[in-house]
């Protein structure tokens, strides 16, 4: 399990095993606090800064991963 998925699990307060590319963010309270926490998590895990507004528009974990890949 990657540190990134573990971090997301902590933010969403769910089991790490439940986190995968197809996880629907809206099902897990994807609010401004979660977005900000994820910004920091991405920075910590990948040393990369994604745009807050673009991150907020993500629908699934795979969208976040695509943003990171493009950054």
């Amino acid at each position, binding site marked *: 399990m990657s540190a990134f998925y573990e971090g997301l699990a902590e933010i969403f307060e769910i089991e790490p095993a439940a986190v995968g590319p197809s996880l629907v963010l809206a099902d897990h309270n994807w609010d*401004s*606090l979660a*977005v*900000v*926490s994820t*910004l*920091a998590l991405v*920075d*910590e895990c990948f040393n990369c*800064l994604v*745009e*807050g*507004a673009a*991150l*907020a528009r993500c629908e699934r974990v795979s969208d976040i991963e695509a943003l990171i890949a493009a950054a």
Partner: protein
Amino acid sequence: MTGADAVGAAAPGFSVAGVRLLGVVSALPRRRLENEAFVERLGAEAVADVVKMIGVESRYWVEDGQTASDLCFAAAQRLLAALDWDPASIDALIFVSQTFDQRLPATACVLHGRLGLASHCQAFDVGLGCSGYVYGLWLAASLIAAGCRRVLVLAGDTISRVVDPSDRATALLFGDAGSATAVEHAAEAPPAYFVLGTDGAGAANLIIPGGGFRQASHDPRRPAGMDPEHLFMDGGEVFAFTLRAVPKLVQDTLKRAGRSADQVDSFVLHQANQFMLRHLAKKIGAPERVPINIDRFGNTSSASIPLVLTNDLAARLVAEPVRLMLVGFGVGYSWGAALFDADPLGCAETVSA
């Protein structure tokens, strides 16, 4: 002397020799609010969610009628007494605040009168918040390089007066405080280093649109019906800005001074938000040297850096030399860092006002 020197000539920023920090006093209002005070309006769950992120457990708020200049005045009175400074010996007073007394005159002039300073003393306001304390020190150092001998930097804010009590993004975050810092010419003092910057593209993300002379335009991100004279903050955008700007600011300042992070005893960051501070402390690579006191005082805007100096670092600052990096960032967007090798201070304390 200001300008380039051999060590960091290629790095951005400035060095100013001959400037010494002499003392710092912070002043807190007497009314202390715990998080329970917000539960009735915002609900227990929202309060718990926000507190988990911002880390504020209590904060001090002014009573009606008490202003940032009152807090700074109390701090300045204590500072002048502790250092035995004759008011007539002060050449400049800089008031740094976004919560001034009146739209005119400059609150610095009012404070000049209350403190009984001399007619040769220049006094002016600087309208910056989170970065403001560093700008105040930068201006003080520059005035000293230009010939002033003693400069008083009074930095304080009462953001409690401009938050919308039903806006969970800001209602719990802010505390009120004032401060006074004495800066003096000292020919033998080592250079202080400064790096400063601005990104005006972020202006709308932390803003009180009303109260000035431009008609506030509608921003769809603002909660419906929010008073234009209340503070709006897009927390996500501000946080993203901080992650972009602050680690680079710290690195640029070290580079300008020709130092590594190990050669700084304490990184005093503007107390913006606990989650953010912890993250920045990790990025700087020295979490044990980044004091955090936002749990006790909230985000006190321009007073947050002096409030760390007079609480968390006070005993050390009066006892021994401390290599300090002071880092302010936020509303504007505006940022600045100052690196001082501080001799033991004559005074570092917090008073009630």
